[in-house]
């Protein structure tokens, strides 16, 4: 297969396993490119990409922008806080205005779940979802699974536990879809107030005891507690959360095997994981960031190849 089965990357749901494998092999090539003395290829030089960020972001936005620039695309950036959205313009109006400036692709982060799907039905450009509310964050799941593949050789058959705020996490949902597609076993772990009631219907195990979860797992993906999405108290205090669900070196060393530690960032050091764990050789957090650029280059490249001239 040399082409994606989809025209937009709105979520991992809707992708096929072959799509993910194609993205991975393409990302392998781009990873080599970004480690060259000159890290740029001219593939997308005749395309313009708009990064529309209706929600704050550092890593994802930088990563997309770097990926676009390394593919030689022209890039326009937009953030909601400094735009006419605050004057009451609707999403479609904002985007249509940007599109009439001849933009070919849109990378969008939006606080509302389904914003990407909605947009893809109303405008002609290719859409890449860079996170829509608590729904999906497909490129994060792709780079997470790619990083697991890189560290452990393959994803199939590996046991991955996603720890923390599953309820508010788009990273968790996209990761579950991607890991399931690639044949990994998935467990979620966290306080029961932060685990959706029907999550087991997605084919994942549920565990509330962190130690048991880590004893089972090959990989632990530690999620950030999303205070900004929590409208009420889900656990008594941060201190209690980190005692129950935080990972420190003592806990890791007490396991009879070495597990891989991941984190999508930004890290609350001392809450989900201690600094020592974040900077330990078991952690692949910075590899995830590097792979993020390669994965996003692959996604943009493969979607762009489907744009008709």
């Amino acid at each position, binding site marked *: 297969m*040399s082409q994606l089965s989809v025209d937009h990357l709105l979520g991992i749901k809707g992708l096929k396993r072959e799509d993910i494998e194609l993205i991975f092999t393409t990302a392998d090539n781009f990873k*080599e490119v970004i480690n*060259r*003395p*000159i890290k740029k*290829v001219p*593939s997308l030089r005749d395309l313009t990409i708009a990064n529309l960020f209706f929600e704050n972001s550092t890593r994802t936005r930088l990563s997309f922008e770097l990926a676009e620039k390394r593919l030689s695309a022209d890039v326009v950036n937009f953030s909601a806080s400094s735009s006419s959205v605050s004057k009451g313009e609707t999403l479609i109006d904002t985007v249509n205005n940007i599109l009439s400036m001849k933009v070919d692709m849109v990378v969008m982060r939006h606080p509302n779940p389904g914003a990407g799907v909605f947009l893809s039905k109303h405008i002609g450009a290719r859409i890449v979802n860079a996170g829509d509310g608590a729904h999906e964050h497909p490129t994060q799941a792709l780079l997470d699974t790619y990083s697991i593949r890189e560290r452990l050789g393959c994803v199939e058959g590996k046991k991955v536990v996603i720890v923390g705020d599953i309820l508010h996490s788009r990273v968790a949902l996209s990761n579950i879809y991607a890991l399931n597609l690639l044949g990994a076993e998935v467990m979620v772990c966290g306080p029961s107030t932060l685990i959706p009631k029907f999550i087991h219907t997605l084919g994942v195990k549920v565990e509330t005891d962190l130690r048991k979860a880590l004893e089972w797992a090959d990989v632990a993906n530690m999620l950030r507690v999303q205070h900004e999405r929590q409208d009420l108290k889900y656990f008594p205090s941060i201190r209690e959360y980190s005692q129950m669900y935080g990972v420190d070196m003592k806990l890791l060393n007490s396991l009879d095997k070495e597990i891989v530690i991941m984190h999508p960032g930004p890290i609350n050091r001392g809450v989900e994981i201690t600094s020592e764990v974040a900077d330990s050789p078991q952690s692949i957090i910075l590899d995830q960031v590097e792979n993020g650029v390669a994965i996003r280059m692959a996604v943009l490249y493969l979607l762009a*190849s489907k*744009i008709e*001239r």
Partner: protein
Amino acid sequence: MSQKIILGAKEIGITLERLACQLVENHSNFENTVLIGIQPRGAIFADRIKTILELNYNLKDIKLGYLDITFFRDDFRRRDKPIEASQTQIDFLVEDKKVIFIDDVLYSGRSIRAALTAIQSFGRPSNIELMALIDRRFSRSLPIQPDYKGRKVDSYDGEKVVVKWIEQDGEDGVYFEQKTTK
């Protein structure tokens, strides 16, 4: 599909030896020269040339890299099917080096045009030469000519020249393939 043989295994062997000999004539000890096989089909050709140089001319430490040009092509989004990328593997810089591009078939010259851009990511070579096993004359779209060529072939559009290597296809041979029209 009709197929006609252009070069058999024996002829390919003779041609490769001649091409290697011509390289030695121009580059003597290969101190400042590097070989770059253009992926995917030029890589095996480049391996063969390197082996001959090592065995017949006792040359050691010849630098060989493989260059993939997929992301540098000028026909992105212009083809029906996108090309799948291969691996680039160049673990040295080409700054001030004499570079020899090695590819199996020289047709429109567009691959080589892309390779000329792609190689710049690895430094500024002092000069670049081109070796092609098959030179399809009269089909060039760009002003690019080989410095070392195995065999010249005249062909029409719609005809295809296929190079087979024993490492990949189980035999050495160069064939003419023509789609038969009904």
